[in-house]
């Protein structure tokens, strides 16, 4: 295809991505280096019978004028990144120097909002992703071995948790887990503790969020693996059987290697999607027990006073996180495609 034609064909897409994905990244980086102007203070001298005293007050008009003239605020360099709400370098250094044990240091870290969010995000990503793949694989194997007639309806019901709006799907689960809902009541009965409540316990909340995560994305892994199973070479399977391979060995040495490229694909997509975990925490109203990086940004943006530069700094850190997380896969994709 000629360069000129190619350019005009991709122009609309390229323009959209440039304006609304590439530019916002620049805008986020810029915003994170500035902070909002402080309020303008004026000193007023009040004189009365007993002498004069000066009071300082906020000059609302001047503040508004200044903020409107320079909406980006004043230059702050890396200050926002290093403050307590983000990387908290001084707090971390202090926690390190006053530590009694390594555990003590980590619990000190966990009290800092950014590290708290990072801890949950990473735990969620690295627990949910493998579990999704395992569950998806088992469903695929099970569906593949049932009779043909039930496969269609099975796929239909299996797709529901994946297709459903994440906010809505997690709400549905959350209502059932409520102490007055069916699952909540069931848990109380199982634990024989009428005061047990998922809402009140941090570990239970983490588990509930992760169960939601697996429930939501297992269908995706299932469908991909199921399609892969359809193309397993039947001749290889049968010759393996003739050679004396038992059921497990056939799965281990014939089916697994065939599905391996699909596993990397599912893992890539799942890492991207789990790292941005957001909606379930909103629906579960779990901010007190678990925050993620996305939630940190959302709370900064949504408050009465929009903390734009704080949100921007967290965004930049999140983007760096995504880059680190995906760099091995990106390098691989680059090499694979570089070949042709």
């Amino acid at each position, binding site marked *: 295809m000629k360069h000129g034609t190619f350019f005009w064909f991709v122009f609309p897409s390229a323009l*959209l991505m440039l304006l609304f994905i590439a530019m916002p990244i620049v805008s986020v980086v810029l915003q994170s280096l500035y902070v909002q102007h402080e309020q303008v203070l004026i000193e007023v001298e009040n004189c009365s019978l007993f002498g004069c005293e000066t009071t300082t007050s906020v000059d609302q008009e001047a503040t508004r004028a200044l903020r409107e003239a320079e909406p980006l605020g004043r230059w702050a360099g890396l200050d926002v990144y290093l403050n307590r709400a983000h990387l908290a370098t001084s707090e971390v250094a202090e926690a390190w120097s006053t530590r009694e044990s390594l555990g003590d240091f980590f619990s000190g870290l966990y009290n800092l909002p950014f590290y708290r969010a990072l801890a949950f995000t990473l735990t969620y990503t690295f627990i949910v992703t493998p579990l999704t793949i395992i569950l998806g694989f088992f469903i695929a194997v099970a569906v593949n071995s049932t009779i043909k007639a039930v496969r269609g309806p*099975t796929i239909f019901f*299996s797709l*529901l948790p994946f297709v459903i709006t994440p906010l809505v799907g997690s*709400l549905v689960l959350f209502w059932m887990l409520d102490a007055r809902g069916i699952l909540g009541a069931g848990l109380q009965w199982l634990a024989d503790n009428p005061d047990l409540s998922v809402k009140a316990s941090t570990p239970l909340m983490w588990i509930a969020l992760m169960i939601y995560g697996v429930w939501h994305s297992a269908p995706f892994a299932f469908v991909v693996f199921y*399609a892969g199973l359809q193309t397993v070479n039947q001749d290889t399977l049968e010759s393996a059987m003739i050679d004396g391979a038992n059921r497990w060995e056939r799965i281990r040495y014939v089916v697994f290697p065939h599905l391996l490229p699909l596993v990397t694909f599912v893992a890539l997509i799942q890492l991207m999607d789990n790292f941005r975990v957001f909606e379930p925490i909103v629906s579960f109203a779990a901010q007190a027990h678990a925050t993620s990086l996305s939630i940190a940004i*959302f709370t900064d943006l949504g408050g009465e006073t929009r903390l734009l530069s704080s949100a921007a700094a967290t965004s930049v850190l999140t983007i760096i996180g995504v880059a680190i997380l995906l760099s091995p896969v990106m390098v691989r994709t680059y090499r694979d495609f570089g070949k042709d």
Partner: protein
Amino acid sequence: MSTAAQRSPLPIKLLTNGFLIFWLILAAFPFLWTLWGSFKVEGDFFSKANWANAIFGRLTVEETGGSFTGDGYYGAWIQEEFWRAAMNSTILCFCVVTISLTCGTLGGYALSRSTYRYAFWFLFFALIFRAMPPITLVSGYLLPFYEWNLWGHLYTTVIVLVAINQPFTLWMLHSFFKNIPKDLDESAMVDGCTRFQAFRHVIIPVMWPGVITTGLFSFLLAYNDFAVTAMLLSEENQTMIPKINSFLGTTQTKGNVMFAVAAVVSVTAPLFVMVMVFQRQIVSGLTAGAVKG
């Protein structure tokens, strides 16, 4: 047709089928439960006394006289004006899908036909953009949108969602177009068509299966989005998902969580129908990316 390798002994058959039934209950039961419960009163759906009340609706009978009530739906759709949000969602989804597909087919077609190195780099950057969490981009939008008075309008959100959707759309359509033989449009060009005419008269008539599948996923993205719509839309332009979230904030205190339950069921219903009609396309779409790697 089952070969010897697929035949399984009875215990394994029982095990796999048992597991499958367990998974199906896991996947479907929450929706059935919520659908059933949405016709009850709050005292039954969240029953302090006995969870079985949610099934038999003891309080529903006491409070309303019948064992089913549409109060939740009335409250959500009429009283809290959920219909407005539903209308906004419809407009938003329609525009996002149409614009995404128009830009995406053009771009995806060019990417699948170009043999130059930059086509690879284009797709590579699209993949990186696909990895950006949308909420990080939202924090980049807010300040410029306030400054230029773009914030709060439905059409701004449409364009933003189209852009966020582009990387995925391009990848998917790119792999669909790769499956359409090159000879088809190239022979049209030998016959004297320009590239665009070849696209218009030869490719467009055969591209619909891929476009429909991609369109379904664009629709899902727009319909399911919360991060972007919650931050970029003003109250009167809200779509359904942020509206449900605002129900939770305001109506839980009023004791009317049932509005949210009814709204949740209303949001789920179209998706249910969509999966039923387009199951095959959704499955092929999920696997398209995987097979191509």
